[in-house]
């Protein structure tokens, strides 16, 4: 039997993406971000999420997409995955929807400029809507963090 998945849908550079709802802790509006020096450009810094300091990743930057101004629609999706807690800056968070596991197909090599390894697959919903499922393990891959640790002052 194919399993039903509940996903949070958000948009980034005119594409729609999905993250399993159980990995999403909350969705926040933009709050002031404290820059952390000597990290990657796509790490925007840290925020105070109700007393917990959470690092914030600009997903556009992470995927090498051109960065854009933050708007009223900009959201921070707080994601918990394998003991990592991070926030993703996305253009907008629009919906929660059920999709069928079967409808997820392997991602084509390049989707909107994003490397396929970051993607779990593409789900077809409705007639012409495509939902790109994120592969969080790759997006938050440790090797990037290891590289950070090697930076010298």
């Amino acid at each position, binding site marked *: 039997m194919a399993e039903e998945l509940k996903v949070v849908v958000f948009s980034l550079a005119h594409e729609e993406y999905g993250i399993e709802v159980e990995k999403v802790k909350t969705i926040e509006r933009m709050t*002031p971000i404290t820059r952390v020096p000597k990290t990657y450009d796509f790490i925007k810094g840290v925020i105070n999420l109700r007393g917990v300091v959470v690092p914030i990743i600009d997903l556009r930057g992470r995927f090498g997409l051109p960065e854009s101004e933050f708007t009223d629609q900009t959201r921070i999706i707080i994601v918990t995955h394998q003991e990592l807690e991070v926030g993703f800056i996305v253009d907008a968070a629009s919906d929660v929807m059920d999709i069928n596991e079967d409808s997820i197909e392997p991602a084509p090599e390049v989707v909107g400029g994003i490397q396929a390894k970051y993607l779990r697959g593409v789900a077809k919903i409705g007639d012409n809507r495509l939902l790109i499922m994120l592969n969080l393990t790759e997006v938050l891959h440790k090797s990037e963090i290891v590289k950070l*640790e090697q*930076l010298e002052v």
Partner: protein
Amino acid sequence: MDLNQYLSMFIDEANDHLQALNEHMLELESRPDDVSIVQVIFRSAHTLKGMSATMGFEDLASLTHEMENVLDLVRNNQLAMDEFIFDALFKSLDALEAMVADITAGGAGKADVTQIVVALQSIVRGDYKHADSAATSEQQQAEDDADTLDEFQRSILEQSVEAGLHVYHMRVQLREDCVLKAARAYMVFQVLGPHGEVVKSTPPAQDIEQDKFDGSFHVFFVTTTEAAVLEKEVGTVSELESVHVTSLGLEDIKQWNDRIQALSGKQEVAATAVVEQQAAPQNGSAPANAAAGGMKEDPAATSAKTIAATANKAVQNRTIRVDIDRLDVLMNLLSEMLIDRVRLEKIAGDLKQNELTETVEHLTRVSSDLQNIVLKMRMVPIDVVFNRFPRMVRDLAKSLDKKVDFVITGADTELDRTVIDEIGDPLVHLLRNAVDHGIEPISDRIAAGKSETGTVNLRAYHNGNHVFIEIEENGRGINRELVLNKAMKNGIVTQEKAASMSDEQVYQLLFASGFSTAEKVSDVSGRGVGLDVVKSKITSLGGHVIIESKLGHGTKFIVQLPLTLSILSAMLFRLGNEKYAIPLTSIVETGMVSKQQIRRLHGGMRMIDYRDSVIPLLSLSALFDCTEYSDFQEEEIEIIIVRKGERLAALAIDDFIGQSEIVLKPLGNYLKSVPGISGATILGDGQVALIVDPNALLK
């Protein structure tokens, strides 16, 4: 019943009991004749046994049971502690610890403890040392209150029969008009004494001694003498109503318990004893019965002992255990509240309404009290770290064949939980070091005109915002030349440099990685690992180590630690619109320098004069890639002078905000380590400020 929910409680308590057992055993070792300590140990062991049985950890329960048997003899003065017994008991403790550790790790707590059990049993039988058996036989073993045999007693009786000895069950009834029942009973035991050994008496000997019996008692007796002879001899004691001696065979012993249960209603005399004793468990607590359920032991005895233990506990234990994570959550909620408080204060200030202002002021007071309490809750006495050391030092001294007095002071000194968790290992290294390297072998000490027993002092105390832990020993002291020679051989220092080094600098060489002055690699140390780890660990906790030493007189390691890692006094400052904090502990002073005072070296490094020396001026804005501020254009630069060990440096900043107590927060797993940043804190306005790690800047 689902026992899993009690598992963590069980583990905590088991560890507590093991710790207590260890401590008291050590205490007993120094005062082997103090029966009151044995009582305490016995109670701990007994509770542990009950707990384990309830939780279904049979191996744990049966090993503690064997220990209990030994301890029981000791507390009834039937057995004197000696080295063999101590070793066997310590070994049992180790095995118990291993089992509990296994349970903690998710195992079933099983272990092969046959050897230990054999040793313990041989102690109880007295045949580990034959000379002892005569002494034990004079008195009787007091075990259970009812007439049932426990597994252990049964096995003794069975073995005795197999060994060709006679096993008798003797029932003695005193006359109604007997005046001194206890004395008569004592005489009976006196008569029995030379003939063999009382394995069990009902009621127990101590009750009989205190006249707590109703005129009859039973003994299980192992002897070579014939029944008739015994009966006759015992009969010579006056004021006895009757003496019945029944010879027991193997089968009788095996079926004894069943028979007793079947007979308990009919056999009048036995019944009185049993009923009287069984009144106790009904008043007693149900858990005590449940605890005994796993063991073939008489419930009356169990509950009586358990009640005693609980009563004792109620006095000492006015605490509850809280998961540290919950305290963290509480702390987070509190810091959120503090942020809202600041906002409220601002709103109240704007609105200028008396009632509101008063309420907010009250809220402010309450919340700062709350904050204090939550912070205090995280403080733990350093005892929890120290308490495992006496045992370690004992074992170490023993294995090295040295004599060491270990003295702990200030075990009640409180430290933040986070520091406590980290400090154990470094202290272990330092203590091992003190016993192995510091204290000389006995012969050397005598040759040096010292007492043969060395002393290791472990002290903890507060001083200002720091906790000091000292490990001092009166051993051989550090030989400066030896250290320097070794350092030069390893290429750590050059000959010229060596000559000009202060003693303190020389001693710090010991912390160099791979450094060891031990000529021989022993089991304990000398492999050159350890002290460098100690140093880096303590440094990572924001503390440092100082060594003082006098050749021939001993060495003192002083570890200085911050009181807490989660709250620290810091200086807040700005770089453009970014706010940062720097721990006050590493700040020497703050000040200003004008552009003219800055000198440039060839490499472009900026230096300033400070007191009598020249120190580097680091640009924080450049190090942190600040876009909005750069100190290079400023005419006057605010500086913070920071220290790491001997080295000083000035950090150029934009502006001071002020001094403040800040709550240290990690940056999260994703940003585990960022160079130059040790963490973050949340300011009153809800903003996150980063905490600068001066140690990383002063490499």
